């Protein structure tokens, strides 16, 4: 106590000297600095930076304590500060990635494990009633049957390809649970995507449309996915997202099958589909295996229909081609709200 412990927030974009010290502190703990972090809490003792914890939206990252200062008390103080900082920034429900060895420590800090990839990574959330109460809500929507299908779509935007996938799944299942990715980082807003899916699957029987959640293809479960439009893919923790689905969501709804379209264009999605084969089916969980059904994309003029193709056409202003790939509701919305203004020739 001879030197006062200083605790304060750092904006890494504004304070380069602090950021450099954080990079060095993380390196001493064998951790990488993550560029997505928007704010840090740091502790400084006698001018020395001894602890840091970062926030990217509602995900706690880059938590490190100088090896010379490790002890539970400082860790609890650090986590207290980052939880309060997150709250001030509008994030109440927090997620945290850590090494599986640290799960016990973070358990003492009010974080609860959601999924663990042994030897690699664990995802935790800061509430004991988060995923459990989400699954309790899902359980109310269970449907009877031997084959219960599931689909997760981003639908950015909804195309005939998506409709084909849902129709196929419905034809081969007793019931289908369809989820729309809720994370709002795509060209088309979540609100609009959800409405397009709702209109687009009109008339297909035995389908329940679910809003997405933070437990499924979200910034928390799958953060690297959302970097792809910025050109940064990096290593993505698909395993966490898929284990969450297998261990929590699928059992709540009694899901037996997951349907996906083949992915010829997007490398990240292609990898996600490939990883699905492993994490949903292999002997990596105590929860029952889920059959993965990959169906070929429907085609238009010998080319697979994909949302990314539609976005390319949108940038080119080619609505006549788009009209062949998407239902009228999607076309109308793209024309009215997502038309990309281009300089007109003089």
């Amino acid at each position, binding site marked *: *106590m*001879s030197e006062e412990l200083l605790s304060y927030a750092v904006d890494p974009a504004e304070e380069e000297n602090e950021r450099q010290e954080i990079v060095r502190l993380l390196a001493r703990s064998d951790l990488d600095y993550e560029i997505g972090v928007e704010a840090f809490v740091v502790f400084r003792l006698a001018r020395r930076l001894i602890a840091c914890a970062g926030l990217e939206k509602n995900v706690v990252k880059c938590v490190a304590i100088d090896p010379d200062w490790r002890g539970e008390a400082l860790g609890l103080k650090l986590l207290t500060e980052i939880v*309060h900082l997150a709250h*001030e920034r509008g994030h109440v429900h927090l997620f945290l990635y850590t090494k599986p060895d640290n799960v016990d420590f973070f358990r003492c800090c009010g974080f609860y494990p959601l999924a663990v990839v042994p030897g690699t990574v664990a995802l935790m959330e800061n509430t004991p009633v988060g995923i459990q109460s989400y699954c309790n809500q899902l359980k109310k929507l269970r449907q009877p049957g031997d084959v219960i299908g599931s689909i997760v779509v981003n639908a950015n935007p909804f195309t005939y390809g998506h409709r084909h996938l849902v129709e196929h799944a419905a034809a081969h299942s007793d019931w289908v649970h369809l989820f729309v990715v809720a994370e709002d980082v795509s060209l088309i807003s979540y609100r609009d995507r959800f409405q397009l899916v709702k209109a687009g699957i009109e008339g297909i029987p035995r389908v329940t449309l679910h809003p997405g959640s933070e437990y499924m293809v979200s910034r928390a479960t799958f953060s690297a996915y959302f970097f792809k439009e910025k050109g940064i893919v990096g290593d993505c923790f698909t395993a966490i997202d898929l284990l969450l689905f297998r261990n929590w969501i699928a059992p709540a709804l009694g899901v037996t099958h997951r349907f996906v379209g083949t992915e010829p264009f997007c490398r990240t999605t292609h990898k996600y589909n490939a990883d699905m084969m492993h994490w949903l089916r292999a002997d990596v969980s105590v929860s029952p295996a889920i059959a993965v059904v990959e169906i070929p994309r429907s085609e238009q003029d010998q080319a697979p229909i994909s949302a990314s193709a539609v976005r390319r056409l949108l940038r080119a202003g080619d609505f006549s081609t788009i009209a062949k790939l998407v239902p009228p509701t999607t076309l109308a919305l793209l024309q009215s709200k997502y038309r990309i203004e281009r300089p007109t020739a003089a």
Partner: protein
Amino acid sequence: MSAPLKLRRSMLFLPGSNAAMLSTAYVFKPDCIMFDLEDAVSLREKDSARLLVFHTLKLPVYSRVETVVRINSLSTPFGLTDLEAVVRAGVDVVRLPKTDTADDVHALEAEVERIETDCGRAVGSTKLMAAIESAAGVVNALAIATASKRMIGIALAGFDYVMDMQTERGDGSELFYARCAVLHAARYAKIDAFDVVFSDVNDDAGFLKEVELIKRLGFNGKSLINPRQIDLLHNAFAPTEEEVDYARRVVQAAETAESKGLGVISLGGKMIDAPIVAHARLVIARANASGLRT
């Protein structure tokens, strides 16, 4: 026989937001415990610390030690609510920070009286003390010390004071005038005087050197930030066997004179004045509180 002397040698500072320290600090047995709602509490935790101190003050374990709360200045958005909380919770003494004038004390007293009336607490039962942290406060020390009959002491706070004086903490010479001024004001007003905190808790020798100095100057005690300093301080204030023997004989002589209705107290053929008797009682009280000096 007069009422037992209230010793205020050690005033232990506790951050008002720290639940663990608040829950356990009484075990260190300082003469006074000061819960801080001011500088030791971040802006974010002002509301939280206030409620924590409100409840802590009501713990039975704190009824056996004198409790002091340093509230935020009444000119801040927190000060008045702090005062509402601690007066209602039964604090013994409210410590006003950054006191510059007697009017600061008058303003505090008016609010304390209103709250006492509101909540049914005996009017006058909340005592006050003022921290002097500026040149203005030092110059006005006498007016501050005599501003209210609720006042039990004034304390010099060194950090802000040296800033105001355009200097910094050093060997103590920078505090020389302020210490003397605060002390004289307190003695004149017949209230207690408290010296600054000694912040390097690892430097026992430096701490004891400062304690010797302020004890010799005549301070009643010192503000402390680490419980470890309590025993060191109490021991430094404890009298020697010789001092206690002499004090006992002085008090005995005074009581004999009183019972015989004599106007003059004599010991060994010498006349003894009232201040000598008062000092003897202080020596005995210190010995009773923490034994002889080791």
